[in-house]
């Protein structure tokens, strides 16, 4: 825990806006433990009812891709438009498809 005496560990905050919605990243906070992390996240990111459910994750537990490797990393998906419905030609007059 870096700088433990002055600022606590860093956590990333994810908010679910309403039941059934995805959890979305809101930002980060500092806290000494999970409970404090949830309370701080509530006070900082949901003062105006932005959500009813929260996740907090220690920042150093997150792995991320980098822009420089973006092309190489994602290009396996680039030439596979047959994964989308519009790739396929349907006979004239087909309905409900």
């Amino acid at each position, binding site marked *: 825990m870096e700088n433990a005496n002055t600022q606590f560990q860093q956590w990333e905050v994810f908010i679910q806006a309403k039941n059934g919605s995805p959890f979305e990243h809101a930002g980060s906070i500092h806290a000494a*433990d999970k409970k404090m992390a949830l309370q701080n996240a509530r006070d900082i990111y949901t003062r105006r009812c932005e959500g009813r459910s929260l996740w907090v994750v220690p920042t150093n537990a997150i792995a991320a891709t980098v822009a420089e490797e973006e092309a190489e990393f994602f290009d396996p998906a680039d030439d596979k438009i047959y994964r989308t419905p519009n790739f396929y030609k349907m006979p004239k007059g087909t309905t409900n498809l």
Partner: protein
Amino acid sequence: MNEDQRLIQFEARINAGEKIEPKDWMPEAYRKTLLRQISQHAHSEVIGMQPEANWALRAPTLRAKKILLAKIQDEGGHGLYLYSAAETLGVDRAEMIEQLQQGKAKYSSIFNYPTLNWADMGAIGWLVDGAAIVNQTMLAKCSYGPYARAMLRICKEEGFHQRQGYEIMAKMMAGNDAQKAMAQDAMNCWWWPSLMMFGPHDADSPHTKESMQWKIKVESNDKLRQRFINRTVEQAYHIGLTVPDPKLKYNKETMNWEIGPINWDEFWNVVKGNGPCNHKRMAHHIKYHNKGQWVRDAAIAFAQNETFVTAL
């Protein structure tokens, strides 16, 4: 890829309107400028809580007190969003706070003015937050992703800050002569400092060109200031306030309200630390930061103990 090629690629991304994210390559000057600007912005939000907190226990009604407390809490939140954005550039919050307390980092000079009467709460919300909104709406379009996102969130929250301020001013201007005089006095105190919040004129602002090239800023100081003036002059007249500038006049061709000269000597004097409250603001920040040490110690001891117990 060498440095030159990286720079070309970086500038191409900026010109294409892409956002730069923390782990992307960026020129050292870009990182440094952003770090200085974002940490300065964070410090301003936090120090800005002090002049308003001065009235938290003396607000005239329960309604006014609730609103004021909510606004002050928002400003603390803004400071935290911005410290988080600055941390993505590789400096931790403790270091930034240390720089503030040692006088190595600046905050907005406007918060070095005192709040002597209740109308000052109105003038701060309407003028100071109003100027901040004009600036922050521009910064929400900046090229650095975490800063732009923090600005969007802040802009959403600022709307009520400015309106509650204007409401205070409007109420006082609808009151008795003493109340009107107080409101006008607050207008006289805060008008010029709020215009100075946009920084020096473009011709005297050496960083502007580079900042605009890299879209750290997307509009210049003078352009933003003019936008604020045009909006605010009409709001002042609407409730019967006089703008304390005898040279103020409307230019029909440009459709701008043109102001008289700004007293930059005063501005630089306050920046250099000679404003009415510079010393007080910093002493207060240090005192309460140190007073909170036992809370931080206790939280850490508790967290460590908890990990120990779970490990068993």
